[in-house]
């Protein structure tokens, strides 16, 4: 979200329902890499690993952030036209 009443306008981060810790607070160990998860989030902005069902972590957020920045600059994502699952698999 962007609050436009300030100069410059400020970007705000919202909607943390799916946010999770990337490491165990007790052991400080990173969560293990696992497969077979369902895809969550907005598909065009989800990282490739996330779309393949892997555990998501910091680098996936960075990848999604890059997609968002491309979206800001270009006004669209080159792969946002993909709608069918067959096309989706072909691109991956």
């Amino acid at each position, binding site marked *: 979200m962007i609050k436009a009443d300030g100069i410059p306008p400020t970007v705000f*981060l919202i909607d943390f329902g799916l946010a999770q810790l990337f490491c165990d607070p007790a052991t400080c160990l990173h969560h293990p890499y696992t497969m077979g998860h369902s895809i969550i989030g907005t598909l065009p902005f989800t990282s490739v690993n996330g779309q393949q069902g892997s555990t998501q972590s910091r680098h996936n*957020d960075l990848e999604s952030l890059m997609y968002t920045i491309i979206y800001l600059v270009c006004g669209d994502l080159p792969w946002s036209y993909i709608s069918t699952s067959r096309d989706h698999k072909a691109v991956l």
Partner: protein
Amino acid sequence: MPPSHSQISCVLVAGSGYGNCLVQVDLVSSTLTQAQCFSDISLGNVYLGRDIWTGGEVAVKIACSSDSMLGHEYRVYMTIAGSVGTPRLIWYGKEDMYKVIVLEYLGDSIGNLVNKEKFDRGKAFLYASQMVCLWYLCKTRSS
């Protein structure tokens, strides 16, 4: 199941902990706002509310009380609260059979702004740099 519009035509939240917040959810504008601004949220419904004490607009997120996600979201908001780029949390609590988060009303989503007009490079860079800072903030607060 999220509440239907008729069910929440007038939800009153008597707050505690975060000051006295009395929120009225406006049926007409909530329908409008949900369609225009808040269409891409993942969980719960977000409505435009009005703080009866201050008269200011607030965002009210409502989910069924059996849904644990809103409680989780509240804890995440508390973890990152007070930083630039995080919305001010006005109230969180349970009202009737729903969990409710009341947040400061922000404005348009980036998706809406991009659809309205294409950003020039300078504006895109301004927002991108703020997003990188927010990414870094989340990572430092979650370890």
